[in-house]
């Protein structure tokens, strides 16, 4: 497709538009999305009936040997971590054979509700030349704020597939960068162009029904209206999974998933 597009450019270059390739190039538009479904009436969430989903994400396999981050080329970063070793977070496994940094979110089933994003922003901090948090969620339209707590210049370079990419630097003393995300996307990787080891992931969702597992591998999603959902589990290095779950009114649904070593 890409090549066809450029084929179409060649005749333009010499000012002739009548090259034989134009009918082929036009086929590109045929894959356009079908017309949007008629607007559904969105229901408000009844706070009296909501329940929650809790669970744990386990890991089956040998605990991998943690890999140390080499920050030797920015002494500011070494100093910020008091010269203690820092380890890569992707692929990290908790000592109790559970996984941290798993993004758990309602993938299907919550579309009929009216979710308005909270007014307080989600904050991404840059501290000790690491992103804090490593995995995070944000709602479509919610304020997303980036701050820099390090005495060195950072660069924030999200590389989304569906949202608008941006690439801005944040020197120490610069004001926070505030953005919003227009479309749901799981996950948006974020790079720092100044410190190649830095990376975090942002899950952009339509609902606030998401959570990230902690250092015991557990998670809790609160405020879930009763119903049946498909949960999505995302990890940086062990792949993704899905699971059906039914939440009773005012009740708790328990989930356990297990990832295998790749």
């Amino acid at each position, binding site marked *: 497709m890409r090549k066809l597009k450029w084929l179409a450019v060649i005749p333009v270059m010499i000012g002739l538009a009548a090259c034989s390739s134009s009918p082929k190039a036009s086929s590109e538009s045929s894959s356009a999305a079908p017309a949007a479904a008629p607007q559904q009436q969105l229901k408000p969430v009844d706070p009296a009936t909501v329940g929650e989903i809790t669970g744990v994400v386990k890991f089956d396999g040998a605990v991998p040997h943690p*890999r*140390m*981050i*080499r*920050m*030797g*080329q*920015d002494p500011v970063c070494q100093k910020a971590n008091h010269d203690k070793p820092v380890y*890569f977070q*992707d*692929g990290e496994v908790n000592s109790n054979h559970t996984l941290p940094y798993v993004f758990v979110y309602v993938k299907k089933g919550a579309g009929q509700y009216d979710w308005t994003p909270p007014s307080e922003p989600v904050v991404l901090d840059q501290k000790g030349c690491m992103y804090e948090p490593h995995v995070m969620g944000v709602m479509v339209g919610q304020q997303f704020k980036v701050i820099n707590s390090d005495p*060195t*210049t950072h*660069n924030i370079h999200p590389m989304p597939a569906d949202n608008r990419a941006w690439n801005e*630097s944040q020197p120490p003393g610069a004001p926070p960068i505030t953005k919003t995300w227009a479309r749901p996307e799981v996950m948006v990787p974020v*790079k720092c*162009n*100044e410190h*190649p*080891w*830095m*990376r975090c992931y942002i899950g952009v969702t339509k609902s606030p029904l998401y959570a990230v597992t902690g250092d015991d591998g557990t998670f809790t999603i609160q405020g879930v209206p009763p119903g049946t959902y498909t949960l999505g589990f995302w990890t*940086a*290095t062990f792949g993704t999974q899905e699971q059906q779950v039914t939440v009773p009114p005012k009740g708790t649904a328990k989930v356990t998933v297990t990832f295998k070593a790749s």
Partner: protein
Amino acid sequence: MALALAIIVALITIVSVVLFHVHHWWLPENIARNGAAFHNQFMLTMAVTGLFFVAAQLSLAYFLWRYKDRGDARKARYTHGNNTLEKIWTSVGAVLFIGMNLLGYRLWAQARFVGASPGALRIEVWAEQFQYWFRYASPDGSGHFCETNVHLMDDATGNPLGMNLSNPACQKNVVTDTLGVPVNRQVELLLRSKDVIHSFFVRELRLQQDIVPGMVIPIHFTATKVGTYEIVCTQLCGLGHYKMRAFMKVMTEPDFEKWLKQQAAEQ
């Protein structure tokens, strides 16, 4: 006016020369085996250019003052030039400039025309935006640099060079963020880049070479003094260019071996 200007020109000339001469801001210490030859060539060039500089500027100053129109009856000299003079300064210039260049030939030839000696320690240098990586074949000098795969490269999981970690040859390779080298032993660097053009510059080695993607560029040097020196990138490589640097640790041979083993253990 003319006198004041002449004095200004002369003052600028003298102060400039003095500041060159006092060496307050000067070449950093030399730790390269061929550093003395570099220094000689540098000083020779400094002498020749300094001579021209002082002569030209002081003549300007002198002419300003001496030939100023003072409103008297003196007439300007009517001449269209002098062919003998033209020939003299053309040939003097040619001999001096090109001769000086030829004197520097050996220095360049030693550094670049001749490859590293067989016993040299080979280290791969990988540059990326905005970091250097150094790869050693193995802690004990055996083995080879294993194949890298661009699709496996991932800085955020600790595999910046894209080595296949299940490959035994790769497991032996040691990747560090500091260039450790033994003192008084020739080192050959193989320069490679993952993305854009970078550069490898160690001031104390008087050595600078661009690192070009798609090419493997060998350079070699012998460091003669133990210490830690800075490696900087001098080729504009993007927004983090200003902080793209690494350190070179020159160590005694036993220290170097110990250091490399420790690095291997930390992999």
